[in-house]
């Protein structure tokens, strides 16, 4: 009974939070017009996708570690 009451309370609080979100979305602390530097190509995580895919493959077939960089690959080329 106590658990059900807690669950109901949390759901009510979440609904209230939703309503607040709907009224006033979270204000970004870096405004869109302040992102000029972040939009510069030198700040891109993957500026040269063909080159970085090749380097990821070189690293991956010569070490045990893999993943964690969001890249997909295939093939072995590892004899």
């Amino acid at each position, binding site marked *: 009974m106590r658990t059900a009451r807690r669950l109901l309370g*949390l759901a009510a609080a979440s609904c209230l939070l939703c309503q607040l*979100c709907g009224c006033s979305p979270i204000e*970004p602390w870096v405004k869109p017009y302040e992102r000029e530097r972040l939009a510069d190509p030198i700040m891109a995580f993957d500026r040269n996708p*063909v*080159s970085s895919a090749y380097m990821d493959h070189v690293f991956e077939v010569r*070490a045990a570690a893999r993943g964690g960089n969001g890249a997909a690959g*295939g093939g072995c080329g590892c*004899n």
Partner: protein
Amino acid sequence: MQLNGRHRQPRRWLAPAALALVCGLYGTASRTDVLPEDRADALVTHYTGGGQDINGISFLVRKKIGDHVSVSYNHLVDIVSGASIDVRTSGASPYRETRNQDGLNAAILYGKTTYTVGFSHSKEPDYQSNTESFGISQSMFGDLTTVSMTYRRTWNDVYKMLCIMRDEAGACVEKEHDPAFGVKDMDERSYGVGLTQILTRNSILSANFEVITDQGWLSNPYRSIMYADPTSGSGFGLAAEVDPSTRTSNALGLDYKYYLPWKAALDLQYRFFSDTWHIRSHTAQIGYTQPWRNWTFDGSFRFYKQTQADFYSDLFTSANQQNFMSRNRELSAFNSYTVGAGATYEFHVPHAPWINKSTANFRVDHFMFDYKDFRDALLIDPTAHVFAGAEPLYTVQLNVMQLFLSVWY
């Protein structure tokens, strides 16, 4: 009782969390995101070191179709020639083989959500690989935050090549699949979650966590273990390696970029990796990018360190010392250092008004590997009193060069 308690705990938070997530998505669903830029790249690569030369070419073409879809096609060819230390230790001759890979990817944008789907196929004489991938990413909180989820499945067919004809010098000129080996299957699944967060007007952070599970044939058909054999003249014998048929790994990667006041970028990366073969690794990389007039210069240094797999040994005591045995140097303990430098030159293509931007790029990377327990078996020489297990540790240096052209249209 404890089990019941554990089961109740997630449920209590699931409904509010789901509602909050829906709330977050609802609150930002009215804005629009962007698709990747239309571009084409042509890359030529040259890899040399460790007894191998690998020359490659790669193309990427990416094009938007309407306002909501972007498709890309990638093709690459690697031509491998030479013989690594594993091939030479086993007594096999240098070889030459070609690997081809084709990949097709699509990104579909709807509001703040981007769906990605991709398929790639890689083929070499003794290895065929297919990969399918799906992903979804969502921008939220005024585009300060992007969360993503990815799923990837790879299934491979592994063969072993048998030399059926040699030339007068002893080099293999014709190979076929070894019927005794047949074909082995390997299946890999990857589950990833990612977060990209704008921190300040000068800095941005990306975090990715990925779990990869493998099942099937995880050994290398060409790699052998070495075991002590006093009855042989060299003091050692060779036997096929046997790896476990399952493996699960976890990797957490962080990438932090900072825009410096004099228009330059600093890049700091770190990755922690662990797997069920008890390999642990740390990767740290620092990069610096400096534009100057039409040029952009890059420099990077990467440090990598890993421990060895449970079943790895440079020299086993016998051919059947334990159930799983490997002398694969990629599963041994080692440190590696990579120094890289690159230059990009932006130029204008005359008589092609549809090209918005074009660059010529050159990059070179120098790798140094210091193995902690992988010895250079080619230096075993009982006549000079260099016996198996006492030969010098193996070190290798590699160079990778890349030359590529990129155009945006």
